[in-house]
């Protein structure tokens, strides 16, 4: 009788182990599938490949906290020419807070788009605040020169850790937060997105009512 009971327990445990193995296999399959999907989102262009593409990974969006619908944290920073600016100075306007750095190639790519969009929508109450994320101590003159060379038509602010922390740490650059006229974040992006996507977020921010 005792042997029968022990055998039953062994069978149960074997079945449990088998179920665990099946689940483990499925979890692995799912993980590999997700990884393959993520890899399909970018393109690497090696010099020797004559434009033959190799798949690349994208991971910026994974690290962005969801602040949409929340009031944009206020901050006060100095511009590269020493003027103090606060987000609250732009009450009633739609604001794009764009975190960038001089060493960030994707940031440079989107800058001409931002310049054009700022020109297009400024009349409707739109502004861009470019918050720099270079090392603390980077000379303001260097940042100002960079802004001039890029033809930037919006304020460039010297960022700090406190401001970055308010926006979730801002690990990946560029990172953009689109603030509506009511002071709430309507959209956020980590990493380079298309100009159309930026414009759509600007329109969304402009469409919000002020308070």
């Amino acid at each position, binding site marked *: 009788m005792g042997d029968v009971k022990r055998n039953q327990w062994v069978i149960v445990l074997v079945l449990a182990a088998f179920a665990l193995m099946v689940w483990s296999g499925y979890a692995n399959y799912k*993980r590999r599938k997700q990884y393959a999907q993520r890899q399909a989102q970018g393109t690497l262009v*090696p010099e020797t490949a004559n434009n033959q593409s190799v798949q690349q990974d994208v991971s910026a969006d994974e690290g962005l906290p969801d602040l949409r619908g929340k009031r944009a944290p206020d901050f006060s920073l100095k511009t590269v020419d020493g003027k103090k600016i606060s987000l609250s100075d732009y009450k009633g306007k739609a604001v794009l807070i764009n975190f960038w750095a001089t060493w960030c190639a994707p940031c440079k790519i989107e800058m001409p788009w931002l310049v054009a969009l700022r020109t297009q929508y400024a009349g409707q109450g739109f502004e861009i605040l470019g918050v720099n994320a270079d090392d603390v101590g980077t000379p303001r003159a260097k940042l100002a020169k960079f802004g001039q060379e890029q033809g930037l038509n919006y304020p460039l602010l010297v960022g700090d850790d406190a401001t970055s922390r308010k926006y979730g740490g801002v690990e*990946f650059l560029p990172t953009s937060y689109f603030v509506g006229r009511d002071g709430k974040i309507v959209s956020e992006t980590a990493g380079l997105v298309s100009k159309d996507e930026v414009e759509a977020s600007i329109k969304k921010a402009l469409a919000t009512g002020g308070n």
Partner: protein
Amino acid sequence: MFLWAVMILLLQVMKDQPLPLPADTQVAFLSPTQVSVAAHRNTQIDLHFRVANGFHINSHAPLDKLLIPARLAVVETPGINVTAVDFPPGTDYALQVAPREKLSVYTGEFVLHAHLTAQPGEHSFEGGLRYQACDANSCLPPHTIPVSVAVVAQ
């Protein structure tokens, strides 16, 4: 015995779960951990690194002066004289939205060649690789990882 098997299975399952990649692990120093060299002779040590899948770092000679190059800072250590570090040439890379704007980068595994002479005895080659990593659409702040190799000179 059976419980051990279950525990091993559980460990295997836990090991296979995807873990978030910390911000400071885009590049890993792979090898060597120890080398044996001839004392008083010019020797080359090959330092192997790997850039995480999906990421690239600027090469030692980026095409834009504002980009941060890969650099190896070597700590001066008694008994070892590092005379030069050779970096491999970068590979051209372009973001999908700007295919004409080329960057010079390292991806996957790359090797630096450190040239040194050592006094007889056991020493430690210490340094730090500074790099700035990006993926297809975004960039991370510059970071430094330690490089340490035990050097036995005879």
